[in-house]
Structures are given as structure tokens and as C-alpha cells.
């Protein structure tokens, strides 16, 4: 396959950045998308040019490092797939492919296609944890959990924090990520003590980081590589409404 790539190049946070066109020939349809970028980078290095910077780690779709806007789709055209698991057979010979970084004020570009996702860490730090001791694994049956709750919590816990939801959202909102983390913990007995301070803290941290507001548009769940459902946002909303009527500093409430 011979492809034309239009890639966002930006030398650093201060640079304005621009789309640059590259020709990549002899691409195997069995390559992953990131392997195709590796091939491009090897050729750029041999030609004495600066290689294209992009995030990646496990390359098996579980770490959440990779994230590219490919032809306007977060993680590319295949649903439920991260960019590293996307194969070149999804494209045709002679295609022009546009590759851009996630675009959000809360995700500033560090270089080329690499963005800083610290804002997600700040949301987690504001409540995405439990205070139970985590020394050794407890006896599995000492705390019963309803099967439906365990399944729904697991579904939300599949979130890898890649940021595709923010990238695809017309409002630049990170609410699907925040809701996945809130849901995962609030469905578990271990997550109950901080249930209502968690949701307030995480939504405040989300807003402070400069993400937009959620309008339930549903673009996020369409591109999520882990298929986090939009219903998690309903769970967050319900917890948030309940939290605003509770006062954490009053015993017995």
C-alpha cells in the first residue's frame, strides 16, 4: 500500500504547529497503525529529519497511552479499538490519512502528536480512590457484591484513560472519563464512605482543568475503545444530585 499522510507537526508547546504531508510507500496491510508510523520515522531518521513524536506503550490496547485523531475519528475508523490495535487493512492503497493530536485546552500539545493528560490525574486525585487499607487481598466472600453491580463496575473499570472521549466531544468535555471512575467506585461497597464527596470533588476538578460541560451528545461513547456506556454519566448525575442535598460534615447524614 502507498499512503499519503498529513501529520500535525509542532516542535514544542510554544510552536504554532502545522499539517505536514509525507508519502509512505510499501506499507503492509498487516502492520498496525503505529508500526506504519514507526516505518515513517525510520525513514525520516535516515534522511536526517526529526521523527514524528507520538505516545505509545503496551501496543495491545490496555495501557491508554496511544491516542491519535485519524481522519477525524478518535483512534481511527474501527470501533472499540485503540490506535495501536488498528491495522492498516482498514485503509486502502492511495488513501490520504490526516493524523492530529487530541484537541482540548486541558490537553496541551507537548510535541507533534503527544499531549499532556495530567488533567485526568488531577480528576483522579480529587476523589478517584477509596480509603480502605489495601495491604493484602481480602477474603473474596467477606464483602458480598451483587452480580449486576460487579458487572457494571467492571464495565466502567475497563476505562484506560486514553482521552478519546474528550477528543471526540463537541464540547471538549471529559465527563465520560469522570463518570466511568465515579461509577466504578460508587457501585462497590468499598467505595461508599467517599461516595458523595468523590463526585463533587471530581466534577469540580474536571471543570477547573478547563474541560467543557457535558450535553449528553454521545460522541464519546461512540469512539471509546473500551465501550464505556453513556449510562455512566446518568449514574454520575444521580450521585451529584444526591451529593448536593447531603452534608458530609454532619454525622448521620
Amino acid at each position, binding site marked *: 500500500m502507498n499512503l499519503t499522510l498529513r501529520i500535525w507537526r509542532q516542535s514544542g508547546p510554544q510552536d504554532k*504547529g502545522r499539517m505536514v504531508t509525507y508519502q509512505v510507500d510499501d506499507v503492509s496491510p498487516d502492520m498496525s497503525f503505529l508500526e506504519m508510523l514507526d516505518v515513517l520515522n525510520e525513514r525520516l531518521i535516515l534522511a536526517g529529519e526529526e521523527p514524528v513524536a507520538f505516545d505509545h506503550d503496551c501496543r495491545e490496547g490496555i495501557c491508554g497511552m496511544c491516542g491519535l485523531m485519524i481522519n*477525524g475519528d478518535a483512534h481511527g475508523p474501527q470501533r472499540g479499538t485503540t490506535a495501536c490495535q488498528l491495522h492498516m487493512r482498514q485503509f486502502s492503497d492511495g488513501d490520504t490519512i490526516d493524523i*492530529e493530536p487530541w*484537541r*482540548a485546552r486541558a490537553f496541551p500539545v507537548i510535541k507533534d502528536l503527544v499531549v499532556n493528560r495530567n488533567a485526568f490525574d488531577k480528576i483522579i486525585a480529587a476523589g478517584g480512590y477509596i480509603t480502605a487499607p489495601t495491604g493484602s487481598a481480602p477474603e473474596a466472600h467477606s464483602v458480598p457484591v451483587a452480580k449486576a453491580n460487579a458487572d457494571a463496575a467492571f464495565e466502567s473499570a475497563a476505562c484506560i484513560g486514553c482521552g478519546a472521549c474528550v477528543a471526540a466531544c463537541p*464540547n471538549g468535555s471529559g465527563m465520560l472519563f469522570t463518570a466511568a471512575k465515579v461509577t466504578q467506585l460508587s457501585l462497590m461497597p468499598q467505595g461508599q464512605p467517599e461516595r458523595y464527596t468523590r463526585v463533587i470533588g471530581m466534577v469540580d476538578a474536571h471543570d477547573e482543568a478547563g474541560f*467543557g460541560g457535558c*450535553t*449528553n451528545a454521545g460522541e464519546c461513547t461512540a469512539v471509546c475503545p473500551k465501550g464505556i456506556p453513556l449510562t455512566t454519566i446518568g449514574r454520575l448525575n444521580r450521585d451529584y444530585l444526591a451529593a448536593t442535598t447531603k452534608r458530609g460534615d454532619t454525622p448521620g447524614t
Partner: protein
Amino acid sequence: MAVTGILLVLFLIAHMLGNLKVFTGAMSFNHYAEWLRELGAPLLPSAGFLWIQRVGLLAAVLLHIGAATVLALRARAARPVRYAHRKKVRGSYAARTMRWGGVIILLFVVYHILDLTTGTLNPIGDPSRPYANVVADFAPARWYVTLFYTLAIVALGFHLRHGVFSALRSLGQQTPRGEQRARAVALVFAVALCAGYLLVPFAVLTGLVS
């Protein structure tokens, strides 16, 4: 957004049911309009109920637009650099047209009040003869009025298609099966309301109501 939207939706339902009284004849329709003015008498002065309703609706509309403006400004600020290549819609079309749809509906409401409440833009414009006002308004010669009315109602349908679902979600709808139900309710409600509002102008246009 959700609470003010629900208030406005309640008004839309009452207004649609009132409109459909046009099929019961001129006497009955004019009498209904008169009854609205006298509602609450003798406790309330003439048109007292209408003014309470107007103030309430105006507050709901202003708060609704205010919340929408805050969301739109936040959305704009949240993505300072735009995508060079952006897929148009992966979620729902209705969700992506909420803002422009809302502006179209607002412009229509302004026109609609000048037309059928104050009578300024109506060919008859007599507040004591609402039936005649409606018939004159949608006369075949004034097809452009009917066209604008239809466009605004379709925009309203799209607005409600996403708005009703989104309001239920904002108020805590959280199960997958409930999501399917909420989407179905939103769709059926939007279509039913559109049909109810469009019946009147098209009945006048085809001579069914004259």
C-alpha cells in the same frame, strides 16, 4: 437546562392542546381564548393568569438560554485549536444541532408573539377574534408564513428529540434499558408534538378549517 426545559415542555403540551380546539369551530375556539383571559377570576384580575404564566415562561426561557450560553462558551474555550479534519456526526444529529436549532426557535417565538399575541404582523390582528387571526395567518396566499412555521416546528422537534432524552439523563436516568426507553419516549414525544402543531396550519392551508 433540564428543569427550565421541562417547564417549557409543559407549556408546549398545553399550548398544542389549546391549538387543536381550532377543529371544534370558531365559537368554541374564541370562547377558549376568552376563558384563558378570565382564568382565575374573580381572585385574579382579567388576563391575570396569562401574565403570571408569561412571567414564568420568560424566566424559564431566559434561564434556559443563559445555561445554554454558558455551555457554548465553555465548549468554545475547551477547544482553542480546532481539528483540521473533523467527522461531522457519530452520535446523534439532533444533539449536534441543539444550539442553532435553539436560535431558530427563539427567532420564531419572537415572530409568533408579534403575529398572534400582539397581532402586529397579522393581517387581521384582532385579539377578540383569534379564530379569524389563525385562518388569515395561514391562508394559501401567505404560504411563506406556513413555511417558516413548519421549519420552526421541525427545528423544535429535533430540539426535543435530544432535549427530552438529555433532561432525563441530567436528572439521573442511569440504566441501559432506561436509556432505550428514554430515547424512545423522546422520539415519540417530539414526533407527536410536531404533528399536533403542524395540523393547524395545514388544516387552514387545505381549507379544512376556514
